[in-house]
């Protein structure tokens, strides 16, 4: 990359404000042709806003967009596309009932006389693009029948119908398997070699270091710097991103566990999990690790009374209990922070305080009325304890960042003073800074004597927070590890159903 070449795209001093928020504060960003430029920042740092400016969905209040040396104004995504700037969305925006070909040329289908669609040309062209992307499916197939990864290929194919100068990938690997990722990276490298400028947005450091040539970091809507990937490391990038360095080490708390708080014996829910037994002691975190579909979430839901077990028993604090509804679970001191906070954890349009006190609102009363003072006291207590960032309790939880939303859900259940806290995927979709805060928090909760179950699909997460790890495969407990004896290899073997991982 020589300095004399024109950037494919350059943003200069972009400012964008919304009522009450300065979402972008003088951001500079450029992509050279044939460069992969990673854009990094925590949730809320302004990445999405910047991309929407790029794609013509938002108009910047100040600043310039320069494409191939020419300042341009783009007021719609169509104009942006005409300028050769294409955005590949994090969430797929395909019409599932239509064929891949129709989706690729949606809105600009080739026509014959009387406005009829020219299917032959459409399918020829679409198949040519899919071939260029090395896809193993035909353009005639209905999108709904494709895997998520292949749907993403259709999305990329759509970008290539125009002469793309710049392609923006927004978290493209979020729903891809490792094998599919390799294919995607090939395509990105291919585009790169064709001189297309790539903007790559992701939370995953490993991907960014594999793919990118340069990294630009945003924080709180402001430009924090651009680094050359080859000359930097994860530490430096993280520091730039969260404004401090991140402690990724395990907290070696003195392993003083109390009595067994939860004991599960031979628990079975036919078709979901079989013969599951484990215990959790006070002050201990037991990690449940396994592939998606291994039955971990279903166990959590059974403990919380959302499913009825077909066999087995549950003991809380030594007492055998029948849990047939969430109310029973709550009464027994079992709380569940569910895996999908937006669908299961929060009433999004409801404010922070009301969400937090929801499970106990009928008990927080003064006469027939909700005791607002008591509610606010609970909210303030957990806002402080969990460092929840919100301007006021009146904010609807919908506007909070993922990390803060998760803290509201955790606060909601801590305020119920549970004996057993089950946390399903505690940091899914949460940026790296909040992630480490939540890990810290889970360790602190254990240190305070809570019995904690953490379900996670991320190995670094289970390794970091757990005292013991239960590895599951196809609804069965394959093996239980003490944190001191576990290795990544043995863990991977156990969750893949390989019996040889069994100790002698």
């Amino acid at each position, binding site marked *: 990359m020589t300095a004399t070449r024109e950037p494919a795209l350059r943003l200069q001093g972009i400012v964008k404000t919304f009522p009450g928020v300065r979402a972008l504060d003088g951001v500079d960003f450029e992509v050279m042709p044939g460069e992969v430029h990673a854009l990094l920042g925590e949730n809320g740092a302004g990445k999405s806003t910047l991309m929407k400016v790029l794609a013509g969905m938002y108009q910047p209040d100040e600043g310039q967009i320069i494409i191939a040396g020419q300042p341009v104004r783009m007021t719609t995504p169509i104009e942006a596309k005409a300028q050769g700037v294409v955005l590949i969305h994090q969430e797929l925006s395909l019409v599932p009932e239509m064929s891949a070909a129709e989706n690729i040329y949606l809105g600009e289908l080739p026509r014959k006389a009387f406005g009829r669609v020219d299917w032959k040309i459409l399918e020829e062209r679409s198949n040519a693009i899919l071939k260029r992307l090395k896809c193993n499916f035909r353009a005639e197939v209905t999108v709904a029948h494709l895997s998520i990864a292949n749907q993403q290929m259709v999305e990329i194919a759509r970008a290539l119908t125009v002469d793309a100068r710049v392609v923006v990938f927004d978290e493209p690997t979020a729903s891809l398997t490792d094998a599919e990722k390799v294919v995607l990276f090939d395509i990105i490298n291919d585009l790169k070699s064709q001189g297309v400028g790539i903007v790559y947005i992701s939370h995953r450091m490993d991907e960014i270091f594999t793919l990118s040539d340069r990294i630009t970091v945003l924080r709180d809507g402001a430009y924090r710097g651009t680094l050359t990937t080859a000359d930097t490391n994860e530490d430096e990038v993280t520091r730039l991103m969260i404004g401090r360095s991140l402690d990724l080490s395990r907290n070696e708390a003195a392993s003083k566990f109390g009595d067994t708080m939860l004991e599960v014996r031979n628990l079975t829910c036919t078709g979901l999990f079989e013969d599951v037994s484990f215990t959790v002691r006070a002050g201990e975190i037991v990690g449940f690790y396994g592939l998606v579909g291994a039955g971990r979430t279903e166990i959590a839901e059974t403990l919380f009374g*959302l499913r009825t077990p077909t066999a087995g028993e549950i003991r809380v604090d030594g007492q055998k209990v029948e849990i047939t509804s*969430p109310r029973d679970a709550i009464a027994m001191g079992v709380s569940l922070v569910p895996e999908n906070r937006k669908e299961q954890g929060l009433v999004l349009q409801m404010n922070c305080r009301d969400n937090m006190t929801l499970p106990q609102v009928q008990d927080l009363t003064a006469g027939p009325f*909700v005791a607002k003072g008591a509610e606010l006291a609970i909210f303030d207590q957990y806002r402080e304890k969990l460092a929840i960032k919100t301007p006021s309790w009146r904010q609807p939880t919908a506007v909070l960042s993922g990390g803060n939303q998760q803290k509201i859900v955790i606060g909601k259940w801590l305020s119920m003073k549970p004996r057993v806290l089950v946390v399903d995927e505690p940091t899914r979709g949460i940026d790296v800074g909040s992630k480490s805060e939540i890990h810290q928090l889970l360790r602190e909760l254990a240190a305070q004597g809570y019995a904690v179950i953490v379900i996670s699909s991320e190995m670094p997460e289970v390794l970091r927070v757990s005292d013991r790890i239960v590895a599951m495969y196809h609804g069965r407990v394959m093996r239980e590890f003490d944190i001191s004896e576990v290795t990544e290899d043995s863990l991977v073997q156990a969750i893949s159903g390989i019996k040889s991982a069994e100790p002698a």
Partner: protein
Amino acid sequence: MLLTRLKAGGPAIAKQGILVAFIVFMIAFSLMSDRFLSADNIMSVFRQSAIIGVMAIGVTIVVIGGNLDLSVGSMLSFATVLVVDLHDKIGPELAIPVMIMATLCLGAINGFLIGILRLNSLIVTLGMLSAIQGLVLIYSGGQNVDIADQSGTWFAVFGRGAVFGIATPIIIFLGLALIFHVIMTTMPFGRRVHAVGGNPTASVFSGIPRSRIVFMTYLISALCVAIAAIILGSRVMGSQNNVGQGYELQVLAAVILGGTSLLGGSGSILRTVLGVLMLAFIQNGLILMGQPYYTQWLVTWAVIIVAVWLDVAAKRGRLFSPIA
């Protein structure tokens, strides 16, 4: 220009769109008719809006809970026919509680099918709309009913009476609105209705008995219909078999005009009261201007469309939909 203004300071004003529209209408009508703002006329509009208003309170609660109730119109026919018919047979002091119990049973059927069996509320209550109408006709044998001694019964107090010079229907309507507003905004039940309507799954995950809450909203809706029937029966002292026909749409219109989201989880009873009054004043104004009464159907429709549009515009900060 309007567009940019709506973007800048507009949201706050547009948020109160219904209030602004209400004031605009009041000013417009008062300029066109000098009788419009007379105390007599205002009182009479309030009195006429009471029946729709009382029903709209119950429907608002159902809608906040994430469901619909289209059965209130024929439920009103049922309740009115029943209370009027029983008045002469067993006396008003028994007719009223019997009718209330019977109407609550209908509400319980709605509540059972929608709350406990989780059937779609649109389909269930649409079915109930015609089922109850059939029930009324079976009960009355197609005959209209009335009360023989219209001047001698204390039953007249609900529809024709007045307290401190204010007509009883107005007092019942506004009193009920206030009570349910307090329940919905300050009591645990109201909070839980909002939660269930806003996100039923998250409510279950928070230990809220979702089925019971939805069931309760339909009981409340039926109770409101029963109260509306007392006012109506008492005012008319008789009832046609299909007296409530079409009320369900007027009620729903008032609820939507009041800004209650049909998606559930948000809404306000006091704003529904505004919606009810606005519809009533529009209808009244048009009549005063000498328009035939059915023009109100067109105008009501237009008002609702504009109200919904302004509401959406305020939420997205612009009048027209952005491309993506």
